[in-house]
């Protein structure tokens, strides 16, 4: 019967198709990992580190460093709405917008404005958005200028003080409204300060009892580890999250960027 023929044809095709799809997702993962975990910029003073761990094979979180050539570095962390392959496609779109804007924009605010101008229509059409925190950091002076498109504020840990709060700056997510002008604020990062940028996958990581990792636990680890190198702090946070979740598959991608100042300038 024709129906039986058609059914057996589908079955014979499904295994190779599944294999091909798996291979393609693996290749896509390799591309994303290479783009995300590229070269860490060399800084005369201070250090940076970042890592992104997708909840699935690929994810929608994004971080990037763009050296501005005058001792400053432009830093970005972003979280694309959704998960998996659709979010990963939009993460690549976001990366392209950042790389194009970063070289032309005067500051982080203009970077976000240019990114929103470039991808607003696409994101609106797709019913999606991206939250982004962007900052220009000059490790030699400690000047830290930042702009925010709907993202969580970073955590700053100051030696012998504990966590300190940067002046809060809020803005609409990229893809939320056309023609947005993103404001900037300026702060100063002191010697030995630790600046921790993150996506909500860390604080919302869950264990088998359904409890969340939460901000307090994360802040405690950062205070405890604040004198370590950026990479050691990063490894400690990943280890503590893994200890907490005990390998339970997570719902959201986990991404962090760590800045450690090492200059002579005392901040304000």
């Amino acid at each position, binding site marked *: 019967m024709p129906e039986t023929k058609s059914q057996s044809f589908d079955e014979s095709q499904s295994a190779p198709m599944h294999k091909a799809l798996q291979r393609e997702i693996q290749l896509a993962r390799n591309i994303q990992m290479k783009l995300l975990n590229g070269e860490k910029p060399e800084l005369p003073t201070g250090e940076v580190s970042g890592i992104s761990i997708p909840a699935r094979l690929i994810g929608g979180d994004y971080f990037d460093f763009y050296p501005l050539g005058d001792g400053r570095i432009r830093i970005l962390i972003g979280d694309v709405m959704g998960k998996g392959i659709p979010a990963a496609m939009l993460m690549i779109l976001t990366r392209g917008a950042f790389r194009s804007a970063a070289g032309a924009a005067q500051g982080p605010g203009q970077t976000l404005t240019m990114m929103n101008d470039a991808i607003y229509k696409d994101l609106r059409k797709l019913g999606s*958005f991206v939250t982004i925190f962007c900052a220009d950091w000059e490790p030699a002076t400690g000047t830290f200028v930042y702009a925010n498109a709907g993202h969580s504020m970073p955590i700053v840990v100051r030696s012998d003080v504990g966590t300190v709060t940067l002046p809060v700056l809020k803005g609409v997510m990229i893809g939320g*409204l056309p023609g947005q002008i993103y404001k900037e604020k300026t702060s100063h990062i002191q010697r030995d300060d630790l600046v921790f940028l993150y996506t909500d996958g860390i604080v919302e990581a869950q264990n088998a009892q359904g409890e969340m990792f939460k901000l307090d636990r994360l802040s405690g680890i950062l205070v405890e580890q604040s004198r370590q190198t950026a990479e050691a702090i990063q490894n400690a946070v990943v280890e503590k999250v893994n200890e907490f979740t005990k390998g339970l598959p997570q719902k959201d991608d986990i991404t962090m960027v760590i800045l450690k100042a090492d200059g002579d300038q005392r901040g304000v």
Partner: protein
Amino acid sequence: MPLHIEEQQKGHTLVLKLAGVMDYSTIDGFEPSIPEKTGEVVVDFSALDFIDSTGIGAILLIIHSAHEQDAAVKFTGLDDNIKELFDTVGVFRILESLRKRGR
């Protein structure tokens, strides 16, 4: 837990009562349908247990669809967690801006 959206048309007001979980696993393919001549869309969050970024994307679809039809959008029953989340990502700013802008 699934998502349940109860729609009630009261004159020119459309009430969307959200219940359950509004996230990546429950919201796939969501398309808001706002009847013609609706002047106001009220989104009631009082029975919503959880919302993630995909759920916020669906709320943005409601906001923009209503705006295209000249309908105002109002939120009720927001708990502190959802309020904080909406404030962080900019949902309230979008509502405010579209309200001021008109069509």
